[in-house]
């Protein structure tokens, strides 16, 4: 896939599908191979969540160490040599003592910690993406970006005794702070560009920044007035607000310029779910291409998503299907959903692979992780989880199937990822007490 011909083809394919493309610029057609020898810098992290687990019999590859794509992963063939599939990993902290596996499993997905069962007193842990984002603070206009395709209504309970936030966020900047995600492509675009209008002149953009500076000065003075006479509990909330204002200050004071983003144009309203996913995929590529952020998390659906897939000819909501009770039609439907989800992930990987970055491509510099809240959705297992790793080829290659003993902590993979991203961490979550053996080619 590194030949110029293949590359040109995929570009044409993208341009032909311009209705959903967000107008990404292509700066460099003649780019070197993905695994060029130069140092990879900067590195990025993208964490991709799919809800309700998978139907394992069609998802996990045959137990060879050389990757043979399973039926549900067939769409990943174009990027197979840049992909690692894991078998045997478990996220034991995701297992609740009482039911509520989707909430606790989703909260534990990137934190590897046990979520506190509460509607108001949230507590889990700092997520993988946020650990990385904190280490990179200030490097990019946005410390991190949270995107998704399902907002979730403001009604009802989500999972027995767990607040809905556990269902809708995988990124936690502190053990008590779930980060909400953007589901509107238009709003996400504006956030990625930090409200800069790529169509405006440089002078107009500078004027806007100056105005923002004046506004922020006044608002920060308001914050300062409040600080002195708040109690401890309210002070925590004001401080969180202040953190957000400081991030806005950085955007104003150290403008990075829009760089490659000046050619981007905003997306419209998604007509349906597949278009919505396409738009969010393009926005993730945009944010990384323009180096607006280096840490992204994405939820294809919320925990226990009951989305229907009429366009696949599948009858039933996803969560209902996952509790198939042995029904053959439901199991077949689940496999189709799994395969479709893998195709969406494959599209993202192909777009990253098609985007030049330094002396390689964006996939080489981006560690991409895919996972779910549970393994088998029918029985809510928290072992034998579906886990894919892509990108970072110089670190661990690709085309591999790594089979671990059932119960091997997923958090160990997270230690490996953090180390690959240049962090000194040796532990993660509750049970990540070291890196995952056998992953790194150099270790």
């Amino acid at each position, binding site marked *: 896939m590194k030949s110029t011909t293949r590359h040109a083809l995929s570009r044409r394919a993208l341009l032909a599908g311009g209705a959903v493309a967000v107008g990404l610029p292509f700066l460099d057609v003649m780019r070197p191979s993905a695994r060029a020898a130069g140092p990879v810098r900067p590195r990025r992290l993208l964490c991709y969540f799919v809800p309700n687990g998978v139907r394992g019999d069609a998802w996990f590859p045959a137990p060879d160490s050389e990757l043979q794509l399973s039926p549900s992963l067939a769409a990943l063939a174009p990027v197979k040599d840049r992909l690692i599939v894991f078998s045997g990993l478990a996220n034991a902290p995701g297992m609740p003592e009482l039911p509520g596996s989707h909430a606790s499993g989703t909260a534990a997905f990137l934190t590897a910690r046990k979520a506190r069962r509460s*509607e108001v007193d949230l507590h889990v842990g700092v997520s993988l993406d946020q650990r990385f984002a904190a280490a990179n603070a200030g490097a990019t206009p946005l410390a991190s970006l949270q995107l998704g395709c399902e907002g979730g209504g403001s009604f009802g309970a989500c999972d027995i005794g767990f607040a809905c936030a556990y269902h809708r966020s995988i990124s936690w900047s502190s053990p008590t702070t779930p980060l909400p995600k953007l589901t509107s492509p238009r709003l996400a675009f504006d956030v990625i560009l930090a409200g800069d209008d790529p169509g405006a002149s440089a002078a107009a953009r500078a004027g806007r920044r100056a*105005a923002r500076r004046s506004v922020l000065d006044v608002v920060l003075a308001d914050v300062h007035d409040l600080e002195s006479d*708040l*109690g401890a509990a309210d002070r925590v909330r004001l401080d969180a*607000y202040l953190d957000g204002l400081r991030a806005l200050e950085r955007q104003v004071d150290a403008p990075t310029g829009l760089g490659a983003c000046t050619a981007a144009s905003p997306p419209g309203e998604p007509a349906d779910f597949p278009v919505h996913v396409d738009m969010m995929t393009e926005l993730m590529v945009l944010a990384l291409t323009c180096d607006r952020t280096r840490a992204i998390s994405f939820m294809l659906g919320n925990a226990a998503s009951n989305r229907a897939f009429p366009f696949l000819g599948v009858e039933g909501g996803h969560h209902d299907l996952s509790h198939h*009770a042995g029904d053959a039609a439901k199991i077949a439907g689940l496999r189709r959903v799994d395969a479709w989800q893998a195709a969406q992930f494959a599209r993202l990987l192909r777009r990253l692979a098609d985007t030049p970055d330094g002396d390689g491509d964006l996939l080489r510099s981006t560690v991409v992780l895919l996972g779910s809240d549970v393994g088998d959705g029918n029985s809510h297992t928290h072992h034998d989880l579906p886990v894919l790793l892509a990108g970072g080829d110089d670190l661990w290659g690709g085309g591999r199937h790594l089979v671990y003993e059932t119960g091997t902590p997923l958090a160990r993979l997270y230690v490996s990822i953090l180390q690959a991203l240049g962090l000194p961490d040796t532990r993660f979550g509750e049970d990540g007490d070291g890196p995952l053996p056998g992953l790194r080619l150099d270790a």
Partner: protein
Amino acid sequence: MRPAPGLRPASARLGALATIAGAACLRRARAGFGALAMIAGAADLFACAQEPGPVASPVPEAMVHRLTAFEYANTVRDVLGVEAALTREFPADPPALGFDAVAASQPPSSLLVQLFQHSAESIADATLRSGPARAALVVCEPDPAEPAPCLRAIVEPLLGRAWRRPPTDAELDRYLALVDPAELDAGLRLVLEAALLSPHFTFRWERDPGGPGESHWLDDYALAARLSYFLWSSAPDDELLALAAVGALQHAPTLAEQVERMLADPRSAGFVDGFAGQWLYFRGLDDIFRDAHRYPRYDDAVRESMREAMRRRFREFLVPGRDLRDLLLDTHAHVDAELAALYYLPEELAIDTFTRIDLGPHKRRGLLTEPGLMTVLAYPFASSPTRRGRFVLEQLLCSPLPPPPPEAAAQAESEASTARERLEQHRADPACAGCHAILDPIGLAFEHFDAVGAWRGSEHGELIDAAGELPTGERFADVRELAAIVADDPRFPRCVATKVLTYALGRPLVAEDEPVLEDIYKKFVASGRDLVALLVAVVQSDPFRIRRAQEPA
């Protein structure tokens, strides 16, 4: 309580001469709320002398509330007269205890602050571009020779309304400094952006004049905001601010009058959608998908009509004198052309506007057979007796069942054709039987209503049997008789009181709240289950009017 100079001079000196108290109240009237403050000021002597005692009862600690996306949009509409369009795309506030306003006491994320900035810029732009909105804001043209008085006349009321209290002189000066009179609109744009991004707008701060742990009466502006966000999901209007300015709001009869006034105001739509929309789940209709082949009648227009029908049913109880049991017992429904097909109405009845129909011939009754409710409590492809049963137990009776056992996730395959048969098999498992014996009779009473709330006689060729018997031995033939049992269950009014108080306070109820809840419940029942009386009892209760000073930072 420690006297708090400048905050509650009158309450600190209860028993002092009325004239002194009155003078103290008058001093608090600020120029910013001019005419209305003067009207209210006429009654201030009486009002201030009637304020509650100097010692406030202990209440649990409360956190500051951030505006939810819903409250933010309503506030912008009422303060500036423009639509906060971007809030529709904000990340939904995930509910806690069933209410987004409870979740909004969590610390905000940096993303939200960025969205507030983005939204403030967009709203400032919309305000200055809209003729009427700009005219309401720019109440005078600055005199080039002496622009200050006019600028102040524009900015001071803006900040007062946006922040639900008069700005201090220092704040006013800070905001006025943003305006170059020669470029009025450019300056006002910055003022608007800053006022809307300020934590004074995006949060409802309540100050603590006393020592940590001490309880104190809320200052009147904070009380005005609690009232308006409770009953309108929006900012206090000029009348509430004027009452606050003279310190008259704490007066219990004034609170009762204000509740009735506010419920009669169109802004009470904020309570209908904010409280009932979440309590009765109709706000969730947005996210409900139905298979188009199986349910061809269901589309966006039907969904909106379902929601409107439920709003109308609930709104009938916002006037004094109705018994809330009738929410479940009423024999009429609100139907428009979109809903007519679901009721199998003759075409001549299918008119565009909503009309009241008699449910007599329809085997339906009240809230429990609303198509919107039946739709929210169903699966994309089927009804859900379990969800419907849980709704009755959790939302109407506040008697949630314990969580299912872990092995309940993996269900056995079933060949049963009706929900009743499937659930009978399910109950054969002893681990499931205990809860399902309570849940199933209730849930199965709804089986005549499919996943979009249309009546059906059979499922997969088998006649539906909606009759049941509760564990108490009470029997019912169908959902209409079940509705009567639920309406008369003493847990129903207590549950309503619990939900309303939780929503009003925006926090979980704790053991210390128990006597207050009991008192409110008794008043509600004594009033003949009048929802307005319940709302009055809530706003007159200690935890609504009193605040415990937080521990120091």
